[in-house]
């Protein structure tokens, strides 16, 4: 299993919110993952609040970063994930890196997110953003973002473009190529 997601779990010291109180939710996607059949012991999540996450939007190393905001409960996000995966593979030697930023709910990390990462064998870097103060951090990603997902940022050094939309592979390929030239 060559999973790119094995790093450190960063426990957020501030807040230390109890998420046990949350209402059970109707998940948009249920059929894809049967959690009980998957052993996810080797899947470790890299979890950040926005302050910790912000560095992934501000790398200045001449690399092109494709940062996709998604969640397992978001059907259109799950649908476009394979295109991001394909992009990550095909452009690996062209200095392009895909980062998949999960906005899954903390109480679903073990039940949904980890089994999903394992079953889909995601090769791109997956990180988790858990920061309930969305009104503060959403505009910091992009002023125009209303907050709907999927949403994607493509950037290279100081040049950045934001997309509040779904992608197919051709569209994604086209956008990334604009950064290559």
């Amino acid at each position, binding site marked *: 299993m060559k999973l790119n997601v094995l790093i450190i779990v960063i426990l957020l010291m501030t807040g230390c919110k109890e998420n046990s109180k949350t209402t059970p939710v109707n998940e948009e996607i249920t059929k894809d993952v049967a959690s009980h059949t998957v052993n996810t012991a080797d899947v470790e999540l890299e979890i950040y609040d926005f302050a910790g996450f912000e560095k992934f939007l501000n790398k200045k190393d001449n690399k092109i970063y494709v940062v996709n905001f998604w969640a397992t409960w978001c059907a259109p996000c799950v649908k476009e994930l394979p295109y991001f995966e394909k992009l990550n593979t095909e452009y690996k030697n062209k200095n392009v890196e895909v980062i998949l930023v999960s906005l899954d709910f903390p109480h679903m990390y073990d039940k949904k997110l980890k089994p999903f990462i394992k079953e889909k064998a995601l090769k791109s870097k997956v990180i988790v953003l858990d920061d309930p103060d969305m*009104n503060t951090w959403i505009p910091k990603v992009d002023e125009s973002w209303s*907050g709907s997902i999927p949403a994607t940022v493509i950037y290279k050094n100081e040049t950045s473009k934001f997309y509040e939309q779904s992608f197919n592979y051709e569209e994604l390929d086209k956008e990334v190529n604009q950064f290559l030239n």
Partner: protein
Amino acid sequence: MKKLIKLVPAAILVLFISAFTLNNTTSNGYGIGDVAKDFSLKNIDGNMVSLADYKDAKGFIVTFTCNTCPFAVMYEDRIQALNEKYAPKGYPVIAIMPNNPKTKPGDALPAMKKSAEEKGFTFPYLMDEGQHVYPKFGATKTPHIYVLEKTNKGNVVKYIGAIDDNHSDASAVKVKFVENAVDALLDGKDVEQKVTKAIGCGIKV
């Protein structure tokens, strides 16, 4: 072709309006200060509902929401609480389900009825049949709230955004955006925080 020509002045008008509207966050749809057009949509009980039906209302908490988005589900109790608190004060909740039920069968009318019954919704839960209303508002996701104030010139948009600043835990909320907006309007004051952002499920077309 004829249709296209007709669309050109409309597109120019939209551009014009959005260019001169304060705090407009999307390229189309209402911004703060715009007058929201009334609509007539079918409620889960089969009756048609319009804002004009509410003769005594001082305004409205128009809430785009649905059954299938986990964010919207997390807010169901809080939407109900908003209606209980503010309908008697003249600001009823008007919930609108904007998704296409063909794309999202879990949001079809029977499912809407079921959620409303289970949760004991005391506000209308309207189907945006044909999906004509949400684009006028410029709603992009569920939940997405528009607080309107009834004035002589019509129902003016006073607040756009989230209900509060913590979706996952109602007890950890620090700022109740919608309540603050409605309280200010009831006091005859200006709404301080007019636009807020939150993650939500994109509207399914």
